[in-house]
């Protein structure tokens, strides 16, 4: 029997929803300022409309709600609802820009940005207003670190009980015992990388490519936000290929690696033990799977159709796309159609595996995550040991993840459960695409890309794709970003409201 949530519980959800959206509303003013800077008058009013609507919605929730404690399930549901409302609001200036065929397309773009996926339905991107283009990347930066993480930072003192919200956004690890300090570090690290990343990229674009100073800053800010947050949007339609600059590829490679690393690992590298990068099972797992996928992709590229003539380009293209896929970024230095027509099935399978595996936990990357894969293989090793030794023997499996830990059933079950949900969602999306008439390998590729928040595409994602598939991918992107638990909780909440007693 389900228990219907009490009035006070629902009011608490509205209260916190309103509070976090209140902060979100003010973010619309940043691109509004950029619109004025670039003399883009209509986009300025698009953002003013976005700000006003977001402000009214947030105040309405805040006014209707009341402060109170939240149960775990309600906190998780709140996160899922928050992300859907954030998508609807972020899509408003995108839709008003006239670069999207429908509001659904704008919502798809907004969800792709918020979840740092990078799949896009934009039309005529090369003539988009700078402010609107900035907004696409800016929502990646904000939501990449976490909307709730931002909320916790701003409303810190009142947020002591909001740990469950933090978990609901697909994060479990606390760098500090206090979740507010954890949020502070995540944002501080991101801003340090922002400053360094934008500076280096601007230098490369200004001196290397001859782009004007203001535009070099604009491009580097957009590239940084999408690379570090493993998002994958770019300001121009040709992705990273637009720049024809090897240094840009190198810097974005570095940013993708930084973005896919656990924030706790950043903390360790900066302030504690630098050897953690070698000792940590998550980094080892990441290194091993990147290497494995790279070998598969190179093997695949050496099979027909042989389109890369030199070994150098074979290694370069292979490595860039494996890392782009594995980190969940989705930057491309080839065209989507080339993946479909010039990459062999083996190479595509290598990329699918890289996307499916994903990056580190407590990072901006998506996918199953390196730590879960490591736990999976550790538990296999444990089973083998148990069978090899006498039944009276006590067998323990240890692993190092910021501290020495012993593998137990709870850890294994949790890793298996989330991994299973990812695999089912990958398959489900592939099946839907296949039923709609796309070849299974391609639809599976796109489905994994959406769920693991990657953004690589074989060309299925475009404005003329079936509407139903757009909705499916929106759900997949959200489910993958929040690691399913919040989505399950929100279904539980609605079920309890309707059927509960």
């Amino acid at each position: 029997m389900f228990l219907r949530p009490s009035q006070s519980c629902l009011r608490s959800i509205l209260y916190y929803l309103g509070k976090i959206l209140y902060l979100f509303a003010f973010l619309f003013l940043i691109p509004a300022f950029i619109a004025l800077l670039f003399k883009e008058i209509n986009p300025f009013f698009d953002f003013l409309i976005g700000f006003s609507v977001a402000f009214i919605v947030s105040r309405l929730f805040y006014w209707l709600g009341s402060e109170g404690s939240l149960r775990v399930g309600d906190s998780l549901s709140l996160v899922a609802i928050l992300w859907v409302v954030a998508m609807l609001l972020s899509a408003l200036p995108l839709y008003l820009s006239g670069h999207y065929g429908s509001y659904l397309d704008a919502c798809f773009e907004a969800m792709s940005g918020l979840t740092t996926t990078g799949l896009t339905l934009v039309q005529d991107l090369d003539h988009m207003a700078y402010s609107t283009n900035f907004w696409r990347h800016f929502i990646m930066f904000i939501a990449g670190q976490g909307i709730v993480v931002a909320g916790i930072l701003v409303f810190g003192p009142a947020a002591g009980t909001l740990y469950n919200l933090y978990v609901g956004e697909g994060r479990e690890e606390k760098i500090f015992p206090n979740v507010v300090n954890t949020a502070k570090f995540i944002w501080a690290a991101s801003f340090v990388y922002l400053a360094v990343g934008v500076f280096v990229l601007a230098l490369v674009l200004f001196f290397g490519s001859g782009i004007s100073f203001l535009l070099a800053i604009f491009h580097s800010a957009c590239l940084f936000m999408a690379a570090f947050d493993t998002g994958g949007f770019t300001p121009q339609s040709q992705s990273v290929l637009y720049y024809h600059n090897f240094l840009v590829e190198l810097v974005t490679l570095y940013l993708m690696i930084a973005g896919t690393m656990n924030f706790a690992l950043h903390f360790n590298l900066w302030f504690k033990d630098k050897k953690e990068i070698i000792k940590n099972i998550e980094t080892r797992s990441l290194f091993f799977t990147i290497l494995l996928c790279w070998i598969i992709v190179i093997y695949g590229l050496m099979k027909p159709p042989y389109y890369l003539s030199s070994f150098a380009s074979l290694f370069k293209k292979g490595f860039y796309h494996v890392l782009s896929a594995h980190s969940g970024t989705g930057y491309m230095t080839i065209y989507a159609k080339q993946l479909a027509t010039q990459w062999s099935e083996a190479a595509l399978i290598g990329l699918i595996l890289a996307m499916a595996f994903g990056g580190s936990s407590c990072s901006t990357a998506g996918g199953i995550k390196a730590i879960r894969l490591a736990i999976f293989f550790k538990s296999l090793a444990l089973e083998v040991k148990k069978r090899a030794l006498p039944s009276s023997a006590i067998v323990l499996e240890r692993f190092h993840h910021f501290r020495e830990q012993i593998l137990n059933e709870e850890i294994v079950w949790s890793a298996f459960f989330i991994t299973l949900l990812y695999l089912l969602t990958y398959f489900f999306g592939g099946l839907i695409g296949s039923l709609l008439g796309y070849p299974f390998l391609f639809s599976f590729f796109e489905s994994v890309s959406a769920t693991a928040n990657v953004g690589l595409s074989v060309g299925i994602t475009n404005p003329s794709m079936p509407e139903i598939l757009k909705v499916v991918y929106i759900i997949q992107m959200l489910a993958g970003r929040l690691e399913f638990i919040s989505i399950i909780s929100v279904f539980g909440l609605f079920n309890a409201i309707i059927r509960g007693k």
Partner: protein
Amino acid sequence: MKRIASVLFFFFFCFFAPCFSVCGAEINDLVNEPVRWEGLEVKVRGEIVGDILKGEGGSFWINVSDGESAIGVFLPQKLAKNLEMERWKGGNYLVKGTELMIKGVFNSACAEHGGDLDLHAMEVRLIRESRSIHHPLSFLKVKLALFLFFVALAFFLFTRS
């Protein structure tokens, strides 16, 4: 014998003529069917988008769009120094970029440029100068924005207590 020769000539013309001529192509076709156009001399028409980028050793890169897809065009130093590039402007929100007709060799994986898909220009002709794009102010948007802004302000004052 003459008849056989003419039939042979006809078949030869049909199958091999494209190899010896410059093919007119849409950029969208090049990008979507790279295998078909690999290594061929093609002629494309499109608008420069974004910036004119410096390459190595006095060469330049431009990105040219036909409205659906864009492609990187490599302008070697020898060609670039004879072009009036200072007159060119890349398209953006406020500018419709310079329109060019470009003859060049299409590479789906250019060995010289790390396997990138590109077009190596041999001839560039200016078709149309860049021009500014006028975006008329949408009064509906202005009215809606101001109305919602004041509603938000009023609602804030109403709920502040």
